């Protein structure tokens, strides 16, 4: 299930800014371990964000996204107290969903 995400969402002048930190190795599949064996690729490949139940962002990622990914974007609308839900799925099929309130 992975570790919890850190989600921040703040509404100002009719725009909600959403910032998400995710805990993930984002292994490229290009690296080798100490014994010379290739470390298999392991990365988040899909991220979905919802604001107040409505999908506002769907991202597809490759292994070129940095370890412990950070994603920030802005949405028109949204107000304090609205619920932000972020879900990621990785290429091994592991997934995690976390929520935060807009402030």
């Amino acid at each position, binding site marked *: 299930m992975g570790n919890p995400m850190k989600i921040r969402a703040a509404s100002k002048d009719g725009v909600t800014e959403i910032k998400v930190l995710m805990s993930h190795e984002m292994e*490229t599949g290009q690296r080798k371990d100490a014994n010379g064996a290739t470390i298999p690729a392991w990365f988040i490949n899909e991220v979905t964000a919802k*604001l107040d139940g409505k999908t*506002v962002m769907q*991202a597809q990622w490759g292994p*070129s*996204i*940095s370890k412990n990914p*950070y994603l920030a*974007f802005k949405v028109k609308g949204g107000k304090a107290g609205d619920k932000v839900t972020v879900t990621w799925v990785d290429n091994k099929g592991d997934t995690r969903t976390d929520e935060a309130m807009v402030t």
Partner: protein
Amino acid sequence: MRTQQFERRQVLTFLGALAAAGFVVPRAAFANWDKAAFEAKTVDDALKALGAGTPASSGDVQIIASDIAENGAVVPVQAVSKLPNTERIAIMVEKNPNMLAAAFDIGPETIPEVTARIKMGQTSNVLVVVKADGKFYSAAKEIKVTLGGCGG
């Protein structure tokens, strides 16, 4: 292909179980991961896979990033589209083995400005490709990756 289908079934089973437990949003919320585009080894192949062909260079597509990265493991990049009806924003790193880093599907209420952090194996062009009103546009910026620290 078989492997991919198998993986997908696994994902579905896993998600199904989680959904039943009330943990996740329905499966339908996810776009299909574009394997062809993400496994493309050249910019042209990736653009083809994204259906972008040869995107027009546009000043309305902006890449906000420092000219130099102190470390290639984490390079902050903001991709901005000033084009009306932006549907999709993709970030590519020309010299990475997996050159497509990310593709963002933008909802109608979402402002087409996304910030992400990408890996860069070496100094390279970073490309942002935008799909707006069904057409494709792009911009490029070179980001230098420096060798840092004592190198020991």
